[in-house]
């Protein structure tokens, strides 16, 4: 199980292939990739602040919850912090399972929990200054699905 909190960019396809090769015996691989999106057309960069120490702990707990709950061969979580460019990967998760239902549900669960329970905060940098991204009520509500 690889869980990485890192400032550096990563190659999503190469990570997916490595994960798939290592998860021998799994029939179903689901991945999610998050990309820096510029909704306003004026964003120059996205800055991710995090809580070193707690971040790794929280991600480890979230991954363990997924493994306790679904039949998984393996889990991958990569999450970046620092200053990211528009179009760059922010994070990815991947799940490997015998059956597709486990792989899909676990990846969906991981994303909901990483969104609201991993200590990251996003700040948008634009031509007109900076602003913190507010958490959405719908993200907190999404946790009730599980």
């Amino acid at each position, binding site marked *: 199980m690889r869980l990485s909190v890192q400032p550096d960019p990563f190659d999503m396809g190469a990570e997916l292939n490595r994960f798939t090769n290592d998860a021998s015996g799994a029939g179903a691989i689901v991945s999610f990739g998050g990309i820096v999106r510029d909704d306003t057309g004026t964003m120059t960069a996205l800055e991710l602040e995090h*809580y070193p120490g*707690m971040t790794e*702990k929280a991600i480890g707990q979230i991954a363990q919850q997924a493994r306790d709950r679904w039949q998984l061969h393996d889990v991958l979580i990569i*999450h970046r912090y620092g200053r990211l460019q528009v179009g760059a990967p922010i994070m990815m998760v991947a799940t490997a399972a015998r059956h597709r239902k486990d792989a899909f549900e676990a990846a969906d669960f991981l994303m909901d929990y990483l969104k609201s329970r991993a*200590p990251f*905060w*996003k700040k948008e940098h634009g031509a007109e200054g900076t602003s913190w991204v*507010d*958490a959405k009520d719908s*993200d907190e509500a999404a946790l009730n699905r599980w």
Partner: protein
Amino acid sequence: MTVDLVYFAWVRERIGVARETVTTTARTPADLIAELSARDPRYGAAFGDVSALRVAIDQELSDFDTPLENAKEVAFFPPMTGG
């Protein structure tokens, strides 16, 4: 007791420091917020709306009335926006 306080995102910006060590008699995060807000308006600006705040005690997400007990580190921050 002596405890390290850490702040993130706009909580950090409003308080003006990322980390500080305080001596306190607070028994819960709620007590701490009240105590600090009475000391300096910077804390009032950061802690004014508790519904927009989250707290972690020794790096575990907690409630505002969770006993601090022998906590070494208490963190205040806005709702998280990972993923």
